[in-house]
């Protein structure tokens, strides 16, 4: 290490359920260079200072969605957040808000995985199609309708940002709604009426109070708040018009 090596303090929220009653903070002094991300900072801690520190990561390039943490209180991908932006102050790193902590910076994702399954995140074909009919064709407009919502990497930053999910974890929440919408507006899909049941339910979109912070923190510009809003309109229309249409798509 050179003499002018810079040192930053990283405060980490630690929690090992087998020995800790509750989470507590621990401060590490980490040498860093200007090109180091917060993820590299915690990796340094694990490699050289405390091998018991646990956190998730994989791609280091904002693709896999596994390195989400609260950094100075903001839900962020630690691989695209840089230590230099906090230096010389201390940077605080905690597990994502609103989720149970499994260990240190690792959250329990089970609740979200269940939600993801419940939205049926795959194309439910409108009609059966034979191989001989060839591939589906979509116009650029049909692609535009869902493309943005298909960019979600399940990083859960939006859930950590959502005060309503924090108050009621049954709320289906931003990313699951965005993904649900992604399939509903796909011209190849015919599963909308099945999925609307969830949107219309007490766990659905009306838990949202239009805070919009989910879209602000989303690293992939999915704009989940937009998907939620569009589905409030869809759901209200379904609520009032269901008696007029033969099949309203919900009970």
């Amino acid at each position: 290490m050179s003499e002018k090596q810079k040192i930053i303090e990283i405060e980490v929220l630690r929690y090992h359920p087998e020995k800790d009653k509750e989470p507590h903070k621990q401060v590490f002094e980490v040498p860093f260079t200007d090109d180091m991300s917060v993820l590299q900072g915690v990796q340094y801690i694990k490699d050289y200072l405390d091998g018991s520190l646990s956190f998730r990561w994989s791609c280091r390039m904002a693709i896999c969605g596994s390195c989400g943490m609260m950094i100075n209180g903001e839900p962020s991908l630690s691989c695209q957040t840089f230590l230099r932006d906090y230096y010389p102050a201390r940077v605080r790193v905690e597990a994502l808000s609103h989720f149970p902590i499994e260990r240190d910076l690792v959250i329990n994702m089970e609740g979200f995985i269940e939600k993801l399954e419940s939205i049926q995140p795959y194309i439910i074909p409108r009609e059966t199609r034979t191989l001989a009919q060839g591939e589906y064709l979509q116009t650029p407009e049909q692609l535009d309708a869902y493309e943005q919502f298909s960019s979600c990497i399940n990083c859960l930053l939006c859930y950590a940002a959502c005060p309503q999910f924090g108050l009621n974890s049954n709320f289906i929440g931003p990313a699951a709604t965005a993904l649900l919408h992604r399939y509903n507006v796909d011209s190849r899909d015919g599963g909308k009426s099945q999925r609307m049941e969830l949107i219309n339910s007490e766990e659905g979109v009306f838990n949202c109070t239009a805070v919009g912070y989910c879209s602000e923190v989303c690293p992939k510009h999915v704009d989940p708040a937009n998907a939620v809003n569009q589905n409030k309109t869809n759901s209200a229309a379904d609520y009032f018009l269901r008696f007029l249409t033969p099949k309203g798509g919900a009970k």
Partner: protein
Amino acid sequence: MKQRTLKRSNAPIFWALFGAGGMLSALFGPMLVFITGIAVPLAVVLPADTMSYPHMLAFAQNIIGKGFIFAIIALFLWHAAHRIFHSLHDIGIHAGTGAKLLCYGLAMLGTLIAAYALLAIGF
């Protein structure tokens, strides 16, 4: 996959009233504040007797005027009730049914009183 029984939410009713009230207050709120709070009391732009008793009575007896007054009072109230109910939830008061009854109940009461008064005043 865990099977859940989903209950349809009744929120669209309140959300629709909230939305309608929000739209109406955005369109007419500032104008009403200007007319009732500035223009008439200070007699700027509008003559001082714009809101005199005979004028207002005639307005309230006209069927369109009646509708306007009713919509403004009722929808503004439903908008406020919904906003207050959700803000209570946001600051950690989860009174549930109680808060719901109080907020929406007051809006309902205001709506009924407005309807009664507008009908009682005659045509």
